[in-house]
């Protein structure tokens, strides 16, 4: 961290008030986003339920390719699908963030017998399509007598495992970016492995990884509409249902695209801001 002298150099002291280094929970610029994220998370998990019917109350005019009245009346139904989509993404990504760290640890293991299976698993999952994995999981769940999962849980599980492999690569890069001197210093101070990880390595590695994780979260959100093939009642499921019921493909699909962009573009913007903020604080 920069000292107060360098902070105020060249500028008046009134402009940049002296702020000693504060813990993260005392910083509003960190606390407010975290509180917002936590609130949104709670809302998605507690308040959103998956209803699998999308009933329209209007019929579009037959002669027109695009009926605005019909389009606007679809918006609440789209919102319902979008919430389910966000819920599946958020739950799946939570799984991915945790599992990804374990995969990264496994891949960095000193033993070859542990390292190679982890590397093979990560490479295999990363280079095969999510769609095939979803079908596979669905077929597996249907065939087995012991495992039974609801559609949204299949999507969460597959999305989580798929993105865990991506996250593990991110974590690995972050852990490797911690200078070797830190490891050596931890050894010199006789810190145990747990203390080394929790007090030395992770606090330095994770901030570097956060922007990459944010990008994967946006990517996961973009892959989540695939859930409609396992009948998760989300955005694309909404569009397909309406198309099947009313034989009107243009309005629902275009509305789904717009609703999607309304979430993903601000999310991508927020990730870029985070990236710039962390890059600024690091230097």
């Amino acid at each position, binding site marked *: 961290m920069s000292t107060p002298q360098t902070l105020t150099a060249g500028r008046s002291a009134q402009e940049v008030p002296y702020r000693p280094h504060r813990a993260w929970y005392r910083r509003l610029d960190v606390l407010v986003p975290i509180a917002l994220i936590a609130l949104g998370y709670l809302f998605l998990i507690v308040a959103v339920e998956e209803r699998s019917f999308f009933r329209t109350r209007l019929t579009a005019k037959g002669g027109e390719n695009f009926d605005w009245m019909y389009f606007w009346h679809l918006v609440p139904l789209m919102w319902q699908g979008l919430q389910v989509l966000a819920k599946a993404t958020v739950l799946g990504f939570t799984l991915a963030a945790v599992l990804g760290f374990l995969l990264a640890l496994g891949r960095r293991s000193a033993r070859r017998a542990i390292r190679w299976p982890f590397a093979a698993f990560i490479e295999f999952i990363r*280079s*095969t399509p999510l*769609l*095939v994995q979803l079908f596979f999981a669905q077929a597996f769940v249907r065939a087995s007598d012991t495992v039974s999962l609801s559609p949204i849980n299949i999507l969460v599980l597959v999305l989580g495992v798929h993105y865990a492999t991506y996250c593990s690569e991110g974590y690995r890069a972050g852990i490797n970016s911690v200078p070797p001197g830190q490891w050596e210093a931890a050894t010199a101070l006789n810190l145990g492995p747990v203390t080394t990880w929790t007090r030395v390595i992770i606090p330095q590695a994770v901030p570097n990884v956060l922007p990459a994780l944010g990008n994967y979260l946006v990517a996961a959100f973009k892959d989540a*509409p695939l859930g409609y093939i396992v009948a998760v009642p989300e955005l694309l499921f909404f569009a397909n249902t309406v*198309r099947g019921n009313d034989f009107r*493909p243009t309005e629902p699909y275009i509305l789904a695209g717009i609703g999607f962009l309304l979430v993903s573009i601000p999310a991508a913007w927020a990730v870029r801001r985070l990236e710039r903020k962390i890059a600024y604080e690091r230097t």
Partner: protein
Amino acid sequence: MDSWLLAPHQYELLADGAWITIQILVYAFILGVLLSLAVGVARLSDRQWVRGLAFGYVEIARGISSIILLFIIAIAVPILFDVNQASLVVLGSVALGLNMGGYGAEIVRGSIQAIPRGQTEASIALNLSPTQRLRHVVLPQAMRIILPPMGNLTIEILKGTALVSLIGLTDIMAATRTIRNQRLVDASGADVTVVFVNALVIYFVLAQIINGLFRLAEWRLEKRYQGGEAEVEAATREPIPGLTK
């Protein structure tokens, strides 16, 4: 080991599917590369409206899910504009290519910006036109930075081609589902996971082939920068017109 294989006619189905997948991949790749070069350069244009247009395209192409884009292009757009639905292979490739162009443009832009400014200044000093500067000075050097992420992106697009089965094309994924249904009907194998493992292995092999091709391209490009004798000789054998020695 035998239980992990399918019947020969089922492999024929998978091969037909693989052919469709490769076709779509190639078309989407061509469109994607053209778009990424054009838009990536346009994002660094001097004119503001060109920059703005390119930025808008990149944001939309990167923001939207490829599956939703696929449905919009393949189903909604032909009806919206009252045109006959072109072949699904073309529409699917267009959707995937548009998607790839958004990501590729950012790769191209980043690589061009990573080229030292001195190169641009030197080519201005040598009185090269902007087109010549791009064609002979900046892009050849940027290519070394572009290729590795472009390889990853192409593998992403390969995985994206699995989506076209959802708009009714018979690619590997659709063939897999057909085989699965056949096996469920004639009960030749209640274990349907075998079919999916076969499909996953085909995708894995295709991804490794793409990986190898890009490695080869990188290797050939790298050789040019290590001062190999063959290409330098060919270039200097004939006197270059206008160049005084």
